[in-house]
């Protein structure tokens, strides 16, 4: 750390990760009452981070050897815990992504949060979030990553429950926190397993072939699965997915941030980070594939019947994350991380577009938005169409390219089930995305005139500009596939395109079919705007109730936790703890009664006896 001023990279990475934290402190301590100043500090800090991230990306473009800076943070016995930064293509790309999305979301929030009583608090939490996520991406060792992983969880808890006067918001925040914690416990146990066998938790060392040499194969699989548990919690995959739709209680920009570059992306990022370690064992890979596929399909079906615009995008996030995990598990690091990048762009765009309507009409219901003239807001409407097309994987938008890469990786697997499931997912995605677009574009029934379209003024532009930037990114990013592939796979042998031309046409065809079905049911003039799923009451209930997952959890908690554990704990407290304390104090009182004849109860006599005894003891030691 001696020459950190001379080393431009180290300085840039330190500044860009710590500036948001400084702004968090400044806002919390000093500027809570000055709204404009708070927003200025937060946006300024994250803009500097963005500049630093871009500088690093440009400077290290094409470097094949990862650079690691680390310093001692804690030492206990032989184990020392480092704090450091790891600069390699993956982390640099992610840093850029996080900084860019945070910056855009914070600019957007100037418009969205205007007039909110907690404006400064909001910006403080946003800065905290940015700091936690950026340091997580740059972490050089797993323990540091774990610390910031939890900080990311904490800040999303704070932001989901931001409107804490709403009961549902606090509930949602709590649910998010507790459910991700469940996964994190597994993650931590996995880390301890690795620590016991490897001696440290450096990411580079875990990824090298040494880890496999030091651990027996069964244990390696177990550790990989436990670490994957953390990913399942954070990225809202199959058993722990229900917190994400509820997290929509927070402000919409928070959802945009949560769903694109931070919180849920942290899970997939961790997978990519530990890619060589996690993919050592074939059994573990099968589990990853199963969980990714199941989450992708379940979430897409849920999205098909939801009327809440934000929830539809939340379900689609789960399914796209499942898609990324499938891509990674299929053995292509590039597929997963490229889809993570493009998805961050278009998912943030989708949420921010929806946010404009949610802010203006104060409703989340798609049909309501449509009836009140949602399509007359030109910028969000155009951006929503672009983003939905990218989500469905229509060329030439970014989502198309990244989905192709994943499908290609899946086609390389021996078992065709995964590819078939992914193609079904492509169809469903296009269907639900365009269902929503058509509902908003073609309102049914009478359209209410909204008098307050003009009331936003400049704030509308604060919200509109980030939308336009993100839309440009969504259009352009796909064309950068080749350079990004070279950048990310620097140092690793790239596998050549095996030429799946039929796959390209099949997936585009399926996506187009999805759009077509959506058009038939929601778009054309005579359409009733009732989907084919909604005509089957049983299926509709199943999907709308999220496959009854929450009910199962509720039952589980009622029976096992409340019915058994907490009852046993109450009994233990009553019968064992309280009773033994009572007995002990009764015993003390009784024995005091018995012995009280020995003394007069006068303070001075007691003191005299005490000092006399002390004197005798001193005398004894002097003589002996």
């Amino acid at each position, binding site marked *: 750390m001696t020459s950190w001023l001379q080393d431009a990279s180290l300085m840039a990475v330190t500044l860009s990760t710590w500036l948001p934290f400084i702004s968090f402190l400044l806002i919390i301590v000093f500027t809570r009452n000055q709204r404009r100043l708070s927003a200025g500090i937060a946006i300024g800090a994250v803009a500097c981070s963005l500049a630093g991230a871009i500088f690093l990306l440009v400077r290290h473009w094409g470097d094949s050897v990862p650079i690691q800076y680390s310093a001692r943070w804690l030492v206990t016995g032989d184990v020392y815990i480092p704090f450091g930064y790891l600069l390699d293509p993956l982390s640099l790309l992610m840093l850029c992504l996080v900084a860019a999305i945070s910056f855009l979301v914070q600019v957007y929030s100037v418009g969205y949060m205007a007039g909110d009583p907690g404006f400064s608090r909001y910006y403080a939490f946003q800065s905290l979030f940015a700091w936690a996520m950026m340091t997580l991406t740059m972490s050089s060792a797993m323990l540091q990553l774990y610390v910031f992983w939890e900080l990311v969880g904490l800040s999303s808890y704070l932001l989901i429950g931001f409107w804490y006067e709403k009961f549902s918001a606090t509930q949602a925040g709590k649910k998010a926190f507790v459910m991700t914690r469940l996964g994190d416990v597994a993650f931590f146990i996995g880390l301890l397993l690795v620590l016991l066998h490897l001696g440290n938790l450096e990411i580079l060392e875990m990824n090298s072939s040494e880890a496999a040499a030091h651990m027996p194969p069964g244990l390696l699989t177990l550790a990989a699965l436990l670490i994957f548990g953390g990913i399942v919690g954070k990225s809202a995959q199959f058993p722990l997915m229900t917190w994400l739709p509820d997290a929509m209680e927070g402000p919409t920009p928070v959802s945009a941030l949560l769903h694109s570059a931070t919180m849920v992306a942290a899970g997939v990022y961790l997978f990519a980070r530990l890619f060589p370690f996690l993919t050592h064992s074939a059994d573990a890979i099968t589990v990853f594939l199963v969980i990714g596929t199941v989450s992708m399909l379940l979430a897409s079906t849920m999205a098909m019947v939801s009327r809440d615009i934000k929830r539809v995008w939340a379900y689609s996030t789960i399914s796209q994350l499942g898609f990324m995990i499938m891509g990674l598990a299929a053995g292509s690091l590039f597929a997963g991380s490229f889809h993570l990048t493009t998805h961050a762009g278009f998912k943030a765009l989708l949420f921010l577009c929806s946010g404009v309507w949610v802010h203006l009409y104060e409703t989340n219901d798609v049909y309501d938005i449509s009836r009140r003239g949602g399509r007359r807001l030109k910028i969000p409407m155009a951006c929503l169409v672009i983003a939905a097309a990218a989500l469905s994987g229509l060329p030439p938008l970014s989502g198309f390219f990244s989905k192709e890469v994943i499908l290609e990786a899946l086609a390389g697997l021996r078992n065709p089930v995964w590819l078939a499931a992914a193609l079904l997912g492509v169809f469903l995605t296009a269907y639900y995305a365009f269902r929503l677009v058509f509902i908003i574009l073609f309102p049914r029934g009478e359209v209410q005139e909204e008098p307050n379209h003009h009331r936003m003024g400049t704030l509308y532009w604060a919200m509109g500009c980030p939308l336009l930037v993100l839309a440009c990114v969504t259009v352009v990013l796909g064309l950068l596939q080749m350079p990004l592939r070279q950048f990310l796979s620097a140092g690793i042998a790239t596998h050549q395109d095996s030429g799946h031309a039929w796959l390209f046409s099949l997936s585009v065809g399926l996506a187009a079919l999805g759009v077509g079905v959506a058009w038939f049911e929601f778009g054309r003039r005579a359409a009733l705007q009732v989907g084919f799923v909604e005509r089957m009451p049983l299926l509709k209930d199943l999907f709308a109730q999220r496959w009854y997952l929450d009910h199962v959890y509720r039952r589980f908690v009622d029976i096992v936790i409340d019915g058994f554990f907490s009852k046993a704990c109450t009994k233990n407290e009553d019968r064992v703890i309280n009773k033994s304390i009572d007995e002990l104090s009764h015993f003390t009182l009784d024995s005091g009664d018995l012995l*009280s004849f020995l*003394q*007069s*109860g*006068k*303070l*001075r006599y*007691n*003191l*005299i006896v005490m*000092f006399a005894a002390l004197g005798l003891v001193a005398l004894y030691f002097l003589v002996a």
Partner: protein
Amino acid sequence: MIVPLGHVFVLAGLIFAMGLVCLVAHRNLIMTLIGVEVMMNAAAIAFVAAALRWQLMEGQAFVLFILAVSAAEISLGLMLVVSVYRRTGSIDPDRYDILKW
């Protein structure tokens, strides 16, 4: 060190004994508190002397702690005296024989 260590210890012992007498002989809670203070100061003198004799700073540092503790103790003690006076209308420790019951 001009004064021999033994002399200082004798002084400290004498002051300690005076404090002890003050503590047990008076029928007044405030005098009891003063006795405790005097005894603490005797200990402080012994600390300083020892620090000077063996050229170690810890003894002097301890005196600062003793000062701080005695300040805290006296304020707490006076508070207790006031509250005990309000309860019983007296500050004679011999009147409080509830310690026996």
